[in-house]
């Protein structure tokens, strides 16, 4: 790296001549910081911003990825919202927010509130480690394990048969009614441990005297949770919510392994649809438009969420 003090210092010159090198020094010093930013910005521009600009450009064309492309204006965007297979994938992505984000956050809140009373340190460490495993293994691995769980002879049906509910048993991922919730619950499984551990850590930071105060007030567990715990965890909830909402809207790995969007288009999500359109159907323009729409939708959902965080 070029160091910012390397420019010759104007010591032995008369004042009028000294002006310019000093100016130069200042310029080097002022813009020298850019040299420190350059490597990261270069990689980011070459492999993220540049490609993103190309995606935007492709989205205005009809193109098979090889031959001639034709300008079609906003037609691809119209298609994204008119074509039920594409629009449906966006709807599914929003449904997945329930399973990937909202449900695990609720489970995490209840679980961590109950776990607050577990005093044993060894049990706490063990539980924390186990609950974190779904965060460590690849989503594709989680999806393979759950595909097996949901299969005809899998554990889910085994349990149902064992408790006399065999009428409910079915191939969960192949059934039009259950496929979407079933893949959604894989996302819940991945996230709820993280939420539980994160919220438990957050509760540890809440001033214990607050709890004593409401208890003296005669508050029960539920009111204690509502008035102290929930506001105290606001930051954690918003932050993990942000991460999980992005994971839901941009989901790919789980769906690819578990259902490939099927049966029919029941579990099709934008990420997989982009992949399919581009690499199977050779509709690069349409896939790009869906990519732009997905990017914007994520921003539209995420940016207001951050305001909640700042108010906290």
């Amino acid at each position: 790296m070029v160091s910012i003090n390397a420019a010759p210092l104007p010591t032995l010159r008369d004042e009028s001549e000294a002006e310019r090198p000093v100016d130069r020094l200042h310029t080097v010093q002022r813009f020298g910081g850019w040299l420190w930013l350059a490597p990261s910005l270069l990689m980011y521009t070459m492999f993220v911003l540049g490609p993103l600009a190309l995606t935007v450009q492709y989205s205005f064309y009809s193109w098979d990825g090889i031959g001639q492309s034709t300008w079609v204006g906003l037609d691809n965007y119209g298609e994204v919202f008119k074509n039920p297979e594409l629009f449906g994938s966006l709807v599914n992505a929003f449904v997945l927010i329930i399973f990937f984000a909202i449900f695990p956050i609720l489970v995490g809140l209840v679980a961590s509130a109950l776990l607050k009373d577990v005093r044993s340190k060894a049990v706490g460490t063990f539980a924390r480690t186990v609950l974190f495993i779904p965060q460590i293994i690849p989503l594709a691995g989680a999806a393979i394990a759950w595909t097996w769980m949901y299969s005809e002879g899998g554990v889910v049906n085994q349990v149902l048969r064992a408790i006399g509910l065999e009428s409910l048993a079915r191939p969960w991922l192949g059934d039009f009614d259950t496929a979407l919730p079933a893949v959604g619950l894989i996302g819940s499984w991945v996230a709820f441990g993280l939420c539980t551990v994160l919220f438990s850590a957050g509760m540890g930071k809440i001033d214990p005297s607050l709890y004593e105060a409401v208890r003296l007030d005669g508050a029960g567990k539920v009111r204690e949770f509502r008035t102290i715990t929930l506001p105290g965890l606001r930051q954690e909830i918003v932050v993990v919510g942000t991460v999980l909402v992005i994971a839901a809207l941009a989901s790919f790995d789980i769906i690819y392994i578990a259902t490939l969007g099927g049966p029919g288009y029941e579990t099709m999500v934008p990420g997989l649809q982009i992949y399919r359109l581009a690499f199977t159907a050779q509709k690069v323009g349409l896939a790009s438009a869906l990519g732009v729409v997905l990017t914007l939708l994520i921003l539209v959902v995420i940016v207001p969420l951050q305001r909640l965080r700042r108010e906290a």
Partner: protein
Amino acid sequence: MVRARVQIAPTIVLALLVLLTVLPLVSLFSTALQPQGTVPSGLTLPRDPHWGNFADAWNAAEFLKLLRSTLVIVIGVVPVSVLFATMAGYALAQMRIPGGGIAFGLLIFGLTLPFEAILIPLYLQMKALGLLNTQLAIILPLIGLYMPFSVFWMRSHFVNVPKELTEAAEIDGATARHMFQYIQLPLAVPAWSSLAMLLFLWTTNQFMLAIVLISDPTKRTLAGALGAFQGERTTNVVLVCAVSLLIITPTTLAFLALQRHFVKALLQGIAK
């Protein structure tokens, strides 16, 4: 009486959560030990465990080759990302850079960008560079894609380092590079080692880019190699389960070994 009930409820909830977490993995394990070619139930006691299945899985997945490939990708992505991000984070937090805010804003935008949005241009770019089906095809984009988070992470470390430290060193005549190398980098060890751990995890678990940009599964990441097992394979469930277990083992072992650090890094990573 009331006390006892309060203690029992959390224990039951905890036990249920732990059980639910391990159940799919136990099912995978019990299936992997059944005789190959059979279609066992999800949870079967392995009366006669076929440990040899794991040896077959090892060969079927060309596991050594896959491990080596994953290592190449990790070594290609992690050190470079950490170094570049540490430099940028240092500059953004400690130097006055005209227009630095714009650079930071651009990077922040990248935090929410779905990888899917740039999948097609990346594919065409790698094709043009002749890098498709090589590990570089995923190393280069991953460095770029992880940059927003990495810079953000390092910047939030350097923001909390007192500016006086930089100023004092400047008065002593230390160059920015010396300052960075001998004072800031050692002070930032906890920050960048956690970052390295997160990037290691995300790189080995990267799936989508791996399956799109590298067609040979043995040249992918560990996670990417799982792409070969799309859907319900009825042909050899037992082997699929064994291979899957084998593939998730290295990161799980790394996690168990560095458990405390991993949890801390992940919790911080979320909180940033």
